[in-house]
Protein backbone atom coordinates (compact mmCIF):
# COMPACT_ATOMS: atom_id res chain seq x y z
CA UNK A 1 0.00 0.00 0.00
CA UNK A 2 2.69 2.50 1.08
CA UNK A 3 6.40 2.43 0.51
CA UNK A 4 8.98 5.06 1.43
CA UNK A 5 12.36 4.97 -0.33
CA UNK A 6 15.22 7.17 0.96
CA UNK A 7 12.57 9.48 2.35
CA UNK A 8 13.82 12.78 3.75
CA UNK A 9 12.15 15.84 5.23
CA UNK A 10 14.10 19.07 5.36
CA UNK A 11 13.27 22.47 6.87
CA UNK A 12 15.89 24.79 5.41
CA UNK A 13 19.26 23.33 6.44
CA UNK A 14 17.76 21.14 9.15
CA UNK A 15 16.93 17.54 8.23
CA UNK A 16 13.99 16.37 10.36
CA UNK A 17 14.00 12.95 8.67
CA UNK A 18 17.36 11.86 7.32
CA UNK A 19 16.74 8.63 5.49
CA UNK A 20 13.67 6.53 6.03
CA UNK A 21 12.75 3.44 3.99
CA UNK A 22 9.99 1.02 4.84
CA UNK A 23 6.91 -0.53 3.33
CA UNK A 24 3.42 -0.89 4.76
CA UNK A 25 1.35 -3.68 3.15
CA UNK A 26 -2.47 -3.64 2.89
CA UNK A 27 -4.19 -4.57 6.14
CA UNK A 28 -1.11 -3.82 8.24
CA UNK A 29 -0.36 -1.13 10.78
CA UNK A 30 3.00 0.43 11.57
CA UNK A 31 3.70 2.67 14.55
CA UNK A 32 6.15 5.55 14.85
CA UNK A 33 7.32 6.54 18.27
CA UNK A 34 10.01 8.61 19.95
CA UNK A 35 10.27 11.74 22.03
CA UNK A 36 9.04 15.13 20.83
CA UNK A 37 10.84 16.52 17.79
CA UNK A 38 12.24 13.25 16.43
CA UNK A 39 10.30 13.56 13.18
CA UNK A 40 7.06 11.59 13.72
CA UNK A 41 4.82 14.47 12.62
CA UNK A 42 7.23 15.45 9.81
CA UNK A 43 7.02 11.91 8.40
CA UNK A 44 3.23 11.96 8.29
CA UNK A 45 3.14 15.51 6.90
CA UNK A 46 5.67 14.51 4.25
CA UNK A 47 3.57 11.54 3.14
CA UNK A 48 0.41 13.66 2.75
CA UNK A 49 2.49 16.40 1.05
CA UNK A 50 2.29 19.25 3.54
CA UNK A 51 6.08 19.60 3.78
CA UNK A 52 8.75 19.27 1.12
CA UNK A 53 10.38 15.90 0.89
CA UNK A 54 13.12 14.09 -0.99
CA UNK A 55 13.12 10.45 -2.03
CA UNK A 56 10.12 8.46 -3.17
CA UNK A 57 6.66 8.05 -1.66
CA UNK A 58 4.92 5.14 -3.38
CA UNK A 59 1.19 4.71 -2.79
CA UNK A 60 -0.35 1.62 -4.40
CA UNK A 61 2.86 1.36 -6.45
CA UNK A 62 2.69 4.91 -7.85
CA UNK A 63 5.15 7.66 -6.89
CA UNK A 64 3.02 10.46 -5.44
CA UNK A 65 5.91 12.72 -4.34
CA UNK A 66 4.99 15.44 -6.84
CA UNK A 67 1.25 15.45 -6.16
CA UNK A 68 -0.54 18.22 -4.25
CA UNK A 69 -1.84 17.26 -0.78
CA UNK A 70 -5.50 17.42 -1.85
CA UNK A 71 -4.81 15.03 -4.75
CA UNK A 72 -3.10 12.57 -2.39
CA UNK A 73 -6.12 12.83 -0.09
CA UNK A 74 -8.63 12.20 -2.87
CA UNK A 75 -6.57 9.20 -4.05
CA UNK A 76 -7.20 7.52 -0.72
CA UNK A 77 -4.90 8.87 2.00
CA UNK A 78 -6.57 10.12 5.16
CA UNK A 79 -4.64 12.29 7.60
CA UNK A 80 -5.40 13.13 11.22
CA UNK A 81 -3.15 16.01 12.37
CA UNK A 82 -1.85 16.30 15.90
CA UNK A 83 -3.00 19.88 16.36
CA UNK A 84 -5.81 21.94 14.82
CA UNK A 85 -7.79 18.83 14.04
CA UNK A 86 -11.06 20.62 13.27
CA UNK A 87 -12.29 23.87 11.74
CA UNK A 88 -13.22 25.77 14.88
CA UNK A 89 -15.52 28.30 13.24
CA UNK A 90 -17.57 25.63 11.48
CA UNK A 91 -20.18 23.57 13.28
CA UNK A 92 -19.64 19.88 13.96
CA UNK A 93 -22.07 19.09 11.14
CA UNK A 94 -20.24 21.42 8.73
CA UNK A 95 -16.92 19.76 9.63
CA UNK A 96 -18.42 16.46 8.50
CA UNK A 97 -20.17 17.91 5.43
CA UNK A 98 -16.81 19.14 4.12
CA UNK A 99 -15.88 15.62 3.11
CA UNK A 100 -19.20 13.76 2.89
CA UNK A 101 -21.53 13.34 -0.06
CA UNK A 102 -24.38 15.87 -0.09
CA UNK A 103 -26.99 13.19 -0.52
CA UNK A 104 -25.91 11.07 2.43
CA UNK A 105 -25.99 13.56 5.31
CA UNK A 106 -28.49 11.64 7.46
CA UNK A 107 -26.65 8.37 6.92
CA UNK A 108 -23.36 10.02 7.89
CA UNK A 109 -24.90 11.51 11.04
CA UNK A 110 -26.22 8.11 12.10
CA UNK A 111 -22.86 6.44 11.46
CA UNK A 112 -21.06 9.08 13.50
CA UNK A 113 -23.53 8.75 16.37
CA UNK A 114 -23.13 4.95 16.27
CA UNK A 115 -19.37 5.40 16.48
CA UNK A 116 -19.31 8.18 19.07
CA UNK A 117 -22.71 8.40 20.83
CA UNK A 118 -21.52 11.33 22.97
CA UNK A 119 -21.48 13.56 19.87
CA UNK A 120 -25.28 13.27 19.58
CA UNK A 121 -26.87 16.66 20.19
CA UNK A 122 -23.67 18.57 19.39
CA UNK A 123 -24.08 18.75 15.61
CA UNK A 124 -25.00 22.45 15.58
CA UNK A 125 -22.23 23.50 17.99
CA UNK A 126 -19.24 25.37 16.67
CA UNK A 127 -16.27 23.02 16.83
CA UNK A 128 -14.22 25.59 18.76
CA UNK A 129 -16.65 25.15 21.67
CA UNK A 130 -16.17 21.36 21.85
CA UNK A 131 -13.72 19.77 24.29
CA UNK A 132 -10.34 18.50 23.05
CA UNK A 133 -11.57 14.90 23.15
CA UNK A 134 -14.76 15.77 21.26
CA UNK A 135 -12.72 17.58 18.63
CA UNK A 136 -10.55 14.48 18.19
CA UNK A 137 -13.69 12.36 17.76
CA UNK A 138 -15.03 14.77 15.11
CA UNK A 139 -11.71 14.62 13.28
CA UNK A 140 -11.63 10.82 13.38
CA UNK A 141 -15.24 10.65 12.18
CA UNK A 142 -14.43 13.09 9.35
CA UNK A 143 -11.46 10.93 8.41
CA UNK A 144 -13.43 7.68 8.32
CA UNK A 145 -16.38 9.09 6.32
CA UNK A 146 -14.10 9.20 3.28
CA UNK A 147 -13.13 5.52 3.61
CA UNK A 148 -9.43 6.12 2.87
CA UNK A 149 -7.21 3.13 2.05
CA UNK A 150 -4.34 4.51 4.13
CA UNK A 151 -4.80 6.23 7.51
CA UNK A 152 -2.08 8.55 8.79
CA UNK A 153 -2.80 9.24 12.45
CA UNK A 154 -0.77 11.74 14.47
CA UNK A 155 -1.25 11.30 18.23
CA UNK A 156 -4.86 10.11 17.86
CA UNK A 157 -5.26 9.27 21.55
CA UNK A 158 -4.35 12.77 22.72
CA UNK A 159 -7.21 14.20 24.77
CA UNK A 160 -9.24 10.99 24.60
CA UNK A 161 -10.64 9.37 27.75
CA UNK A 162 -9.59 5.72 28.27
CA UNK A 163 -13.00 4.37 27.20
CA UNK A 164 -12.77 6.36 23.96
CA UNK A 165 -9.25 5.01 23.40
CA UNK A 166 -10.90 1.59 23.46
CA UNK A 167 -13.50 2.72 20.91
CA UNK A 168 -10.73 4.05 18.68
CA UNK A 169 -8.83 0.79 19.04
CA UNK A 170 -11.89 -1.19 17.89
CA UNK A 171 -12.44 1.20 14.97
CA UNK A 172 -8.83 0.85 13.83
CA UNK A 173 -8.92 -2.95 14.07
CA UNK A 174 -12.11 -2.97 12.00
CA UNK A 175 -10.33 -0.85 9.38
CA UNK A 176 -7.39 -3.26 9.31
CA UNK A 177 -9.80 -6.17 8.76
CA UNK A 178 -11.14 -4.24 5.74
CA UNK A 179 -7.62 -4.32 4.27
CA UNK A 180 -6.84 -0.69 5.00
CA UNK A 181 -3.37 0.29 6.20
CA UNK A 182 -2.52 2.47 9.16
CA UNK A 183 0.58 4.51 9.96
CA UNK A 184 0.21 5.81 13.46
CA UNK A 185 2.49 8.15 15.40
CA UNK A 186 2.17 8.24 19.17
CA UNK A 187 4.35 8.52 22.26
CA UNK A 188 2.32 5.77 23.96
CA UNK A 189 4.34 2.75 22.87
CA UNK A 190 1.99 0.23 24.51
CA UNK A 191 -0.96 1.60 22.55
CA UNK A 192 1.09 1.34 19.35
CA UNK A 193 2.18 -2.23 20.10
CA UNK A 194 -1.44 -3.25 20.64
CA UNK A 195 -2.42 -2.07 17.14
CA UNK A 196 0.71 -2.29 14.99
CA UNK A 197 2.67 -5.14 13.47
CA UNK A 198 5.87 -3.16 13.94
CA UNK A 199 6.79 -0.01 15.83
CA UNK A 200 9.69 2.13 14.58
CA UNK A 201 11.44 4.11 17.26
CA UNK A 202 12.80 7.33 15.77
CA UNK A 203 15.80 9.23 17.01
CA UNK A 204 17.44 12.23 15.34
CA UNK A 205 15.59 11.63 12.08
CA UNK A 206 16.53 7.95 11.79
CA UNK A 207 14.99 4.64 12.86
CA UNK A 208 16.95 3.67 15.97
CA UNK A 209 15.01 0.56 16.93
CA UNK A 210 12.28 -1.72 15.54
CA UNK A 211 9.88 -3.24 18.05
CA UNK A 212 7.59 -6.14 17.12
CA UNK A 213 3.91 -5.46 17.82
Amino acid sequence: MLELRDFQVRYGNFKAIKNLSFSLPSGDAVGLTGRNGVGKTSTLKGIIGLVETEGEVLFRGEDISDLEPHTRATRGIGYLPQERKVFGQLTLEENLRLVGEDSGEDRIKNEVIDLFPCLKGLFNQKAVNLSGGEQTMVAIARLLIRNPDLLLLDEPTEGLMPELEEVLHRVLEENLRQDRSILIADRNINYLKAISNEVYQLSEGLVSNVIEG
Partner: protein
Amino acid sequence: MSKLAFGLLNGVVWGTVLALLSSGLNVVFGLMGTVNVAHGSLYMFGAYLAWICFSFLDSFWLSLIVSPLAVGLVGVSIGFLLKPVRKDPILTVLGTFGITILLQGSTLVLWGGTPRRVPLPFDSTFSLFGTGYSFYRIFVALVSGLVLYCLWFLVERTKFGLRLRASREDPELSSAIGIPVFNLFLLGFALGGALAGLSGALIAPLVSLTPEMGLRIFAIVFLIVIIGGLGKIWRSVVVAIYFAVFRGLASIFLDSTKGLILTFSLALLVVLVNPSILGRSSANANGS
Protein backbone atom coordinates in the same frame (compact mmCIF):
# COMPACT_ATOMS: atom_id res chain seq x y z
CA MET B 1 -37.99 67.29 3.91
CA SER B 2 -37.67 66.36 0.24
CA LYS B 3 -33.90 66.95 0.44
CA LEU B 4 -33.73 64.59 3.41
CA ALA B 5 -35.78 61.91 1.62
CA PHE B 6 -33.62 62.20 -1.50
CA GLY B 7 -30.44 62.06 0.59
CA LEU B 8 -31.70 58.97 2.40
CA LEU B 9 -32.83 57.19 -0.74
CA ASN B 10 -29.67 58.03 -2.66
CA GLY B 11 -27.67 56.83 0.33
CA VAL B 12 -29.48 53.47 0.34
CA VAL B 13 -29.02 53.04 -3.43
CA TRP B 14 -25.32 53.95 -3.31
CA GLY B 15 -24.98 51.84 -0.18
CA THR B 16 -26.20 48.68 -1.94
CA VAL B 17 -23.64 49.17 -4.74
CA LEU B 18 -20.93 49.84 -2.18
CA ALA B 19 -22.07 46.71 -0.32
CA LEU B 20 -21.79 44.69 -3.52
CA LEU B 21 -18.29 46.02 -4.15
CA SER B 22 -17.23 45.50 -0.51
CA SER B 23 -18.55 41.95 -0.58
CA GLY B 24 -16.36 41.23 -3.59
CA LEU B 25 -13.33 42.47 -1.67
CA ASN B 26 -14.48 40.55 1.40
CA VAL B 27 -14.53 37.30 -0.57
CA VAL B 28 -10.93 37.84 -1.71
CA PHE B 29 -9.56 39.50 1.44
CA GLY B 30 -11.82 38.17 4.19
CA LEU B 31 -12.39 34.62 3.00
CA MET B 32 -9.12 34.01 1.18
CA GLY B 33 -6.79 36.30 3.11
CA THR B 34 -5.40 38.15 0.07
CA VAL B 35 -5.37 41.95 0.01
CA ASN B 36 -6.34 42.72 -3.57
CA VAL B 37 -5.48 46.41 -3.97
CA ALA B 38 -6.58 46.11 -7.62
CA HIS B 39 -10.21 45.56 -6.54
CA GLY B 40 -11.07 49.24 -7.10
CA SER B 41 -9.51 49.14 -10.56
CA LEU B 42 -11.60 46.08 -11.42
CA TYR B 43 -14.67 48.17 -10.52
CA MET B 44 -13.38 50.95 -12.81
CA PHE B 45 -12.79 48.39 -15.57
CA GLY B 46 -16.37 47.10 -15.18
CA ALA B 47 -17.71 50.66 -15.47
CA TYR B 48 -15.64 51.34 -18.63
CA LEU B 49 -16.91 48.07 -20.13
CA ALA B 50 -20.44 49.41 -19.61
CA TRP B 51 -19.42 52.56 -21.48
CA ILE B 52 -17.88 50.44 -24.29
CA CYS B 53 -21.02 48.28 -24.54
CA PHE B 54 -23.15 51.40 -24.77
CA SER B 55 -20.87 53.34 -27.16
CA PHE B 56 -19.84 50.57 -29.55
CA LEU B 57 -22.56 47.93 -29.24
CA ASP B 58 -25.40 50.32 -28.44
CA SER B 59 -26.52 48.22 -25.49
CA PHE B 60 -25.94 49.13 -21.89
CA TRP B 61 -27.87 46.04 -20.75
CA LEU B 62 -25.30 43.77 -22.38
CA SER B 63 -22.72 45.16 -19.96
CA LEU B 64 -24.57 43.64 -16.99
CA ILE B 65 -23.45 40.27 -18.38
CA VAL B 66 -20.20 41.26 -20.12
CA SER B 67 -18.70 43.25 -17.21
CA PRO B 68 -18.97 40.56 -14.50
CA LEU B 69 -17.77 37.85 -16.91
CA ALA B 70 -14.83 39.83 -18.32
CA VAL B 71 -13.77 41.28 -14.96
CA GLY B 72 -14.20 37.84 -13.37
CA LEU B 73 -11.71 36.52 -15.94
CA VAL B 74 -9.31 39.35 -15.10
CA GLY B 75 -9.75 38.31 -11.45
CA VAL B 76 -8.74 34.73 -12.27
CA SER B 77 -5.69 36.02 -14.17
CA ILE B 78 -4.67 38.07 -11.11
CA GLY B 79 -5.07 34.92 -9.01
CA PHE B 80 -2.75 33.02 -11.38
CA LEU B 81 -0.19 35.84 -11.34
CA LEU B 82 -0.22 35.85 -7.53
CA LYS B 83 0.33 32.09 -7.23
CA PRO B 84 4.05 32.27 -6.38
CA VAL B 85 3.58 35.02 -3.77
CA ARG B 86 0.07 34.42 -2.45
CA LYS B 87 1.26 33.44 1.03
CA ASP B 88 3.26 36.65 1.41
CA PRO B 89 0.96 39.59 2.29
CA ILE B 90 3.50 42.30 1.45
CA LEU B 91 4.27 40.87 -1.99
CA THR B 92 0.54 40.41 -2.77
CA VAL B 93 -0.12 44.06 -1.86
CA LEU B 94 2.79 45.19 -4.04
CA GLY B 95 1.76 42.86 -6.87
CA THR B 96 -1.88 43.95 -6.89
CA PHE B 97 -0.84 47.60 -6.57
CA GLY B 98 1.22 47.08 -9.73
CA ILE B 99 -1.86 45.62 -11.44
CA THR B 100 -3.81 48.73 -10.33
CA ILE B 101 -1.26 50.99 -12.01
CA LEU B 102 -1.35 48.78 -15.13
CA LEU B 103 -5.17 48.83 -15.40
CA GLN B 104 -5.42 52.54 -14.64
CA GLY B 105 -2.60 53.43 -17.05
CA SER B 106 -4.03 51.23 -19.84
CA THR B 107 -7.44 52.88 -19.45
CA LEU B 108 -5.82 56.31 -19.64
CA VAL B 109 -3.86 55.39 -22.77
CA LEU B 110 -6.79 53.70 -24.52
CA TRP B 111 -9.65 56.06 -23.71
CA GLY B 112 -7.97 59.20 -22.32
CA GLY B 113 -8.58 61.09 -19.11
CA THR B 114 -11.76 62.83 -20.24
CA PRO B 115 -14.66 61.84 -17.99
CA ARG B 116 -17.02 59.47 -19.81
CA ARG B 117 -20.75 59.23 -19.26
CA VAL B 118 -23.24 56.47 -19.88
CA PRO B 119 -26.84 57.73 -20.24
CA LEU B 120 -29.56 56.26 -18.02
CA PRO B 121 -30.86 53.11 -19.75
CA PHE B 122 -34.45 54.16 -18.99
CA ASP B 123 -35.76 57.63 -18.25
CA SER B 124 -38.88 56.82 -16.27
CA THR B 125 -39.21 58.43 -12.86
CA PHE B 126 -41.67 58.43 -10.00
CA SER B 127 -42.71 61.41 -7.94
CA LEU B 128 -41.08 61.90 -4.55
CA PHE B 129 -42.22 65.05 -2.74
CA GLY B 130 -43.14 66.52 -6.10
CA THR B 131 -39.77 65.81 -7.70
CA GLY B 132 -38.99 62.99 -10.14
CA TYR B 133 -36.82 60.14 -8.83
CA SER B 134 -35.23 57.78 -11.35
CA PHE B 135 -36.55 54.22 -11.47
CA TYR B 136 -33.06 53.16 -12.61
CA ARG B 137 -31.72 53.92 -9.11
CA ILE B 138 -34.37 51.63 -7.63
CA PHE B 139 -33.40 49.00 -10.22
CA VAL B 140 -29.75 49.29 -9.11
CA ALA B 141 -30.69 48.79 -5.45
CA LEU B 142 -32.91 45.78 -6.27
CA VAL B 143 -30.29 44.05 -8.47
CA SER B 144 -27.57 44.69 -5.87
CA GLY B 145 -29.81 43.34 -3.09
CA LEU B 146 -30.65 40.24 -5.12
CA VAL B 147 -26.99 39.54 -5.94
CA LEU B 148 -26.01 40.07 -2.29
CA TYR B 149 -28.65 37.53 -1.23
CA CYS B 150 -27.29 35.04 -3.81
CA LEU B 151 -23.76 35.66 -2.49
CA TRP B 152 -24.89 35.05 1.09
CA PHE B 153 -26.57 31.82 -0.04
CA LEU B 154 -23.43 30.74 -1.90
CA VAL B 155 -21.10 31.38 1.05
CA GLU B 156 -23.34 30.18 3.89
CA ARG B 157 -25.49 27.48 2.34
CA THR B 158 -23.48 25.66 -0.33
CA LYS B 159 -20.60 23.24 -0.21
CA PHE B 160 -18.50 25.70 -2.24
CA GLY B 161 -19.00 28.35 0.46
CA LEU B 162 -18.31 25.83 3.20
CA ARG B 163 -15.02 24.87 1.57
CA LEU B 164 -14.16 28.55 1.05
CA ARG B 165 -14.69 29.24 4.78
CA ALA B 166 -12.71 26.15 5.75
CA SER B 167 -9.81 27.12 3.46
CA ARG B 168 -9.74 30.58 4.99
CA GLU B 169 -9.57 29.17 8.49
CA ASP B 170 -6.96 26.51 7.90
CA PRO B 171 -5.57 26.10 4.35
CA GLU B 172 -3.21 23.30 5.42
CA LEU B 173 -5.88 21.14 7.02
CA SER B 174 -8.26 21.88 4.12
CA SER B 175 -5.69 20.66 1.65
CA ALA B 176 -4.97 17.56 3.71
CA ILE B 177 -8.64 16.51 3.73
CA GLY B 178 -8.93 16.81 -0.05
CA ILE B 179 -10.01 20.41 -0.68
CA PRO B 180 -8.27 21.94 -3.73
CA VAL B 181 -7.32 25.18 -1.99
CA PHE B 182 -5.64 26.87 -4.97
CA ASN B 183 -8.62 26.16 -7.26
CA LEU B 184 -10.87 27.73 -4.62
CA PHE B 185 -8.47 30.69 -4.47
CA LEU B 186 -8.93 31.19 -8.23
CA LEU B 187 -12.70 30.82 -8.01
CA GLY B 188 -12.73 33.33 -5.15
CA PHE B 189 -10.81 35.80 -7.33
CA ALA B 190 -13.28 35.18 -10.17
CA LEU B 191 -16.20 35.83 -7.83
CA GLY B 192 -14.61 38.95 -6.33
CA GLY B 193 -13.82 40.26 -9.83
CA ALA B 194 -17.33 39.53 -11.10
CA LEU B 195 -18.85 41.45 -8.19
CA ALA B 196 -16.52 44.40 -8.83
CA GLY B 197 -17.37 44.31 -12.55
CA LEU B 198 -21.11 44.20 -11.90
CA SER B 199 -20.87 47.08 -9.37
CA GLY B 200 -18.99 49.16 -11.94
CA ALA B 201 -21.51 48.42 -14.70
CA LEU B 202 -24.51 49.18 -12.46
CA ILE B 203 -23.10 52.50 -11.27
CA ALA B 204 -21.83 53.62 -14.71
CA PRO B 205 -25.01 55.56 -15.69
CA LEU B 206 -25.00 57.41 -12.35
CA VAL B 207 -21.41 58.73 -12.20
CA SER B 208 -18.67 60.18 -14.42
CA LEU B 209 -16.15 57.55 -15.44
CA THR B 210 -12.47 58.35 -15.00
CA PRO B 211 -9.40 56.09 -14.78
CA GLU B 212 -8.85 57.13 -11.12
CA MET B 213 -12.35 56.24 -9.94
CA GLY B 214 -11.19 52.79 -8.80
CA LEU B 215 -8.31 53.96 -6.65
CA ARG B 216 -10.54 56.57 -4.94
CA ILE B 217 -13.20 54.06 -4.02
CA PHE B 218 -10.77 51.37 -2.86
CA ALA B 219 -9.92 53.27 0.34
CA ILE B 220 -13.61 53.45 1.27
CA VAL B 221 -14.30 49.81 0.44
CA PHE B 222 -11.21 48.64 2.31
CA LEU B 223 -12.33 50.55 5.42
CA ILE B 224 -15.83 49.04 5.14
CA VAL B 225 -14.42 45.51 5.00
CA ILE B 226 -12.10 46.13 7.98
CA ILE B 227 -14.86 47.64 10.14
CA GLY B 228 -17.43 45.07 9.03
CA GLY B 229 -15.09 42.17 9.70
CA LEU B 230 -13.03 39.93 7.46
CA GLY B 231 -15.17 37.19 6.03
CA LYS B 232 -18.37 38.65 7.49
CA ILE B 233 -20.33 39.45 4.34
CA TRP B 234 -23.50 40.73 6.05
CA ARG B 235 -21.66 42.96 8.49
CA SER B 236 -19.81 44.67 5.64
CA VAL B 237 -23.18 45.16 3.88
CA VAL B 238 -24.54 46.95 6.98
CA VAL B 239 -21.41 49.12 7.29
CA ALA B 240 -21.56 49.99 3.55
CA ILE B 241 -25.17 51.12 3.82
CA TYR B 242 -24.43 53.10 7.01
CA PHE B 243 -21.51 54.74 5.27
CA ALA B 244 -23.46 55.70 2.14
CA VAL B 245 -26.59 56.86 4.00
CA PHE B 246 -24.67 58.90 6.56
CA ARG B 247 -22.49 60.42 3.87
CA GLY B 248 -25.58 61.16 1.73
CA LEU B 249 -27.31 62.90 4.64
CA ALA B 250 -24.16 64.75 5.72
CA SER B 251 -23.68 66.00 2.17
CA ILE B 252 -27.07 67.76 2.32
CA PHE B 253 -25.81 70.08 5.03
CA LEU B 254 -22.10 70.11 4.19
CA ASP B 255 -20.22 69.86 0.93
CA SER B 256 -19.26 66.40 -0.36
CA THR B 257 -15.67 66.41 0.96
CA LYS B 258 -16.68 67.58 4.44
CA GLY B 259 -19.44 64.95 4.42
CA LEU B 260 -16.85 62.28 3.63
CA ILE B 261 -14.50 63.52 6.37
CA LEU B 262 -17.36 63.56 8.91
CA THR B 263 -18.41 60.02 7.96
CA PHE B 264 -14.86 58.65 8.27
CA SER B 265 -14.33 60.56 11.54
CA LEU B 266 -17.50 59.16 13.07
CA ALA B 267 -16.55 55.62 12.01
CA LEU B 268 -13.10 56.13 13.55
CA LEU B 269 -14.63 57.51 16.76
CA VAL B 270 -16.98 54.54 17.08
CA VAL B 271 -14.04 52.16 16.62
CA LEU B 272 -11.90 54.04 19.15
CA VAL B 273 -14.67 54.11 21.76
CA ASN B 274 -15.65 50.49 21.18
CA PRO B 275 -12.85 48.51 19.47
CA SER B 276 -14.84 45.28 19.83
CA ILE B 277 -17.11 46.55 17.04
CA LEU B 278 -14.31 45.65 14.64
CA GLY B 279 -15.26 42.30 13.14
CA ARG B 280 -12.48 39.82 13.67
CA SER B 281 -11.43 37.37 11.02
CA SER B 282 -12.67 33.86 11.52
CA ALA B 283 -9.12 32.62 11.72
CA ASN B 284 -8.20 35.07 14.45
CA ALA B 285 -11.36 34.41 16.35
CA ASN B 286 -10.85 30.70 16.15
CA GLY B 287 -8.79 30.11 19.15
CA SER B 288 -8.39 26.46 18.32
